C-alpha cells in the first residue's frame, strides 16, 4: 500500500509539471491578454503607451520560457502570485472559493449515491422488467441533457411553478438541493447502469450460486456478496470522471450563483487572469490525482484479494 502512495506522489509531481507547462503555453498562445481589462478600456480612455507600459510591468514582453521560469521559481516557494483582477494572492482566492465548491460537490455526491445505489440494485433485481426499463430511460435522459438546461428546468418547476425552493443563492439547505441535484443527476443515472451491469455479472458468479445453495437469504447475497464486487468498476469510472464532475460544477455554479472554484475559473479565463488560471489548474490536478489515489486505496478495503495479491508478492 505504501509503494502505491509513494509512486502516486512522484506521479503527482510529474503530472502537475506537465499540466502547468501545457496550460501556460496554451494560455499564452490564446489571443488576448488582460491589459485592456485591467485598464478598463471599455469606459476609460486608454492609450497604446499605457498598454505598453503595463505589459512591460507585468512582464508580458519577455520570452515565454522566462515568464514560465519566473512563475515556476515562485511556485517552488509556494507563491502562486496575485490575481490581476482583484490584486489578492491567488492562494487566498482559491481558498475562499474551495469550501463553496467542496460543499456543492459533497451534496451532489451524496445525492448521487442516494440515487445510484437504489436504482442500480433495483434494476439488477428486476432485469428487463419495468424498473430496469425505467432506469434505462433515466440514463438515456441523464446522458443527453446538458446540465445548464436541466438546471433551468428544475428552477422553472421548483422555484417558479411550485414555489417551494429558491431559484439560486447559497447559505441555506433548500438552496443546495437544486444545484446538487443538477450536478449529481447525470452521473447518478449513468452510474446506476454501471452498477446494474456489475451486479448482474457478480450475481452469476459461482460464489453466489454457492451462497444460494447454502440457503443464504437473497437480500444478503445481493448486498453483501454481489454488491461488494459490483461496486469496483463503478468506483474506477468515478475516479476517472471526477475531472468532468468539476467541469460540470462550473456551469452549475454560474447558474445558481454559487461563487465557487468553477465560477472563479470562468472569470479568470474570460479576463485572461493568468495566475488564477494556473492556480486553478494546479489545484484541480492535485484534486483529481488524490481522488484517484483514494479510489485505488479503497480497493484494498472493498476487495480483500488485492491485499492478498500484494502479500503474495
Amino acid at each position, binding site marked *: 500500500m505504501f509503494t502505491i502512495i509513494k509512486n502516486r506522489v512522484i506521479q503527482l509531481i510529474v503530472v502537475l509539471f506537465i499540466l502547468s507547462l501545457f496550460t501556460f503555453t496554451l494560455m499564452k498562445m*490564446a*489571443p*488576448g*491578454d488582460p491589459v*485592456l481589462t*485591467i*485598464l*478598463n*478600456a*471599455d*469606459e*476609460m*480612455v*486608454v*492609450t*497604446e*503607451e*499605457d*498598454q505598453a507600459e*503595463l505589459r512591460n510591468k507585468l512582464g508580458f514582453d519577455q520570452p515565454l520560457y522566462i515568464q514560465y521560469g519566473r512563475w515556476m521559481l515562485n511556485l517552488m516557494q509556494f507563491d502562486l502570485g496575485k490575481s490581476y*483582477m*482583484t490584486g489578492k494572492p491567488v492562494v487566498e482566492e482559491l481558498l*475562499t472559493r474551495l469550501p463553496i465548491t467542496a460543499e456543492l460537490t459533497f451534496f451532489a455526491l451524496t445525492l448521487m449515491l*442516494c440515487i445510484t445505489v*437504489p436504482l442500480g440494485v433495483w434494476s439488477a433485481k428486476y432485469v428487463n422488467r419495468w424498473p430496469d426499463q425505467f432506469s434505462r430511460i433515466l440514463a438515456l435522459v441523464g446522458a443527453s441533457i446538458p446540465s445548464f438546461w436541466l438546471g*433551468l428546468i428544475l*428552477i*422553472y418547476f421548483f*422555484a*417558479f411553478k411550485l*414555489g*417551494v*425552493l*429558491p*431559484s*439560486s*443563492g*447559497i*447559505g*441555506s*439547505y*433548500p438552496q443546495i*438541493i437544486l444545484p446538487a441535484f443538477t450536478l449529481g443527476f447525470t452521473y447518478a443515472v449513468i452510474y446506476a447502469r454501471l452498477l446494474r451491469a456489475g451486479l448482474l455479472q457478480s450475481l452469476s458468479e459461482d460464489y453466489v450460486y454457492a451462497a444460494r445453495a447454502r440457503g443464504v437469504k437473497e*437480500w444478503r447475497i445481493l*448486498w453483501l456478496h454481489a454488491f461488494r464486487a459490483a461496486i469496483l468498476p463503478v468506483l474506477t469510472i468515478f475516479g476517472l470522471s471526477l475531472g468532468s464532475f468539476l467541469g460540470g460544477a462550473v456551469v452549475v455554479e*454560474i*447558474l*445558481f*450563483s454559487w*461563487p465557487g472554484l468553477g*465560477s472563479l475559473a470562468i472569470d479568470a479565463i474570460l479576463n485572461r487572469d493568468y495566475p488564477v488560471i494556473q492556480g486553478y489548474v494546479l489545484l484541480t490536478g492535485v484534486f483529481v490525482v488524490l481522488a484517484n489515489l483514494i479510489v485505488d486505496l479503497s480497493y484494498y478495503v472493498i476487495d480483500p484479494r488485492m491485499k492478498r495479491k500484494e502479500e503474495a508478492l
Partner: protein
Amino acid sequence: MRNYKNVLVGILCLVLVLIAGCSTTQKSTEKQEDKEKNVNMIFSFKAADLDPHTGFIPIRAGITETLLKLDEKSNIEGWLAEKWETADNQKWVFDIRDDVKFQDGKKLDAESVKQSLERCLKANESLEGSLKIKSMEADGQTLTINTTEPYPALPSELVNPYTSIVNMEAANKDGEEAFKNNPVGTGAFKVKEFKANQFVEVEKNENYWAGEPKLDSAMIKFNEDANVRALALQSKEADVVYNLPAESLDAIKKDNKLNVKSIPGLRAHFVLYNSQSENVKDLKVRQALDLLLDRESVAKDIMLGHGLEANGPFNSTLPFGLDEEVSELNVEKAKSLLTQAGYKENAEGLMEKGGKPLTLELVTYKARPELPLIAQLLQSDASKAGIKINIKTVENADTHLAENKDWDLATYSNNTSPRGDGSYFFNTAFTETGALNVGKINIPELNTLIQELNRTTDLDERTKLTQEAAKVINKEVAHSYAVYPNIIIGMNKRIVNWEPTAEEYYILTHNMDVK
C-alpha cells in the same frame, strides 16, 4: 432486512430535514416583510468586494455618492458638490455641500473629499489619466483642484462611480479589508451584510442628507445567468431584475404583477472599417456598405424591438445625439456608388474591379450575441449588391483586430457615452493613440474637432462640437452605426417612485418605495 430498512429511514430523515429547512426560511422572510419595507434585486455582475474605487456596486446600491452626477437626461449636475467653477479649465473650485454627513456621523468637508480622491487615484490605475489631477487644496467646504493641463472634461470624469467619496478616516481606522467590505459613504443606504460574489444587504441611513429613505432595507443578489434572473422575477423572489433576455419578456408581460421597462441605453452596436484595407479605403465603398446595413431589421428582428435604429455614435435621445434621419437599406444606390468607385458587375453578379471581385472579410465575436447576427444580415444584404462578405468569428476581437491587418470590417459594440459625455469615445476610438482605434482611423478634420472639444468647457459649445464631430464621422463613414440596444429591466409592480436610468449608476435611491 434490517440494513435495508436503515438505509430507507436514513433517506427519509434527510428528506424531512431538507423540507423542514425549506419551510422555516420561507416563514421568516414573510414575517420580515410584514414589519418593514424591503426590496430584493438581482444584478447581472457580481462583486468580489465593495471597494467603491474599483467597482460600481457601492454607487448602485446607494452606499456611496460622487461629487457630480447625471440627471435623467444625462446632463451633469451637482451632487455632493453644490456648484463648481473654473476660469481657465485648470484651476477648479468645488463648493462641497454643507449639510452632508457620512454614515458614521462625521461631517463631509473639503478635506475628507480630498482624502477620498487621493485614495481613488491610488487604488485605480485608470483614474490618473482620466482625472489629470496635479494637486488639491481643501479649505472648509471649498475644494480646489489643479489639473496638469487645461482639462474641461474634469466635471464629466468626476461623475465616474470610481471617484465615490468615502470617509477615509474610518477606512484608515478599520483597516483595508474592513473598508473593502463596508465602505462608509454618504449615501441613502449603508452596508448591513456583504458576502463576496453572493449578495450585499443594505439598510437605510436614517440621517441621509436628501431626506429619509422610504425603504428600510434592500437585498441585492448577483446572478450572471439571464434566464435564472427572469425566473426569479417570475417567482416573485426578486422585485427588480437587470438585463433580461428578450425571449423571456412575453411570459413576464403576461403576469399582471410584473412590469418590463425597456429604456434607451448608452451603448451602440456598429460596424467599424479598417482604414488600412485596400478594399474599404475608398469612401464610396464604405458609403455603399453603410447603405447595405439594414438598421430597421437590426432593431426589429435582431433586437426584437428593444433597440433604437442608430443615426450616429451617440443615442439620438441624448442631448448631444444627432437628429438626422436614419439611413435606410438601399441596394440600388449602393450598386451605383460601387459603379462610381470603378466596380463593374460581372457575369456571376459580383462587383469586380480589374478582374478581381469585391470580397471582404468581416470579423465578429460572440460575447455579444447580436453582433454575429448583424454580421449575417449585412452579409446577406451585401450579396444583393454584388459584394461577397466572408464572416470570421474570433474569440477576442480587440486583440485580433489590433494584431491583424488583413480584415476589412468588423462588428463591434461600445458604451459610447459613459458619464454623459462623448469625448471618451472620440479619444479612444478615433485618435492616433486611442486603445480602441483598431482601424487606424485618421481624419484630420475630426482630429481638429476632438482637440477643440478637449479644450472646451462650455456645455452648449461641447454639445455643438460633439455633434459636429459625429457628423464628420458619418460623412466619412468611419464607422456605420447600427443600433442602440435598450436596457431591459423587469420589475414587480409593488415598486413605486422609481424609474431605471440609462447610465445604470443610480439604482437604489432614497425615493424608491414599495406598495
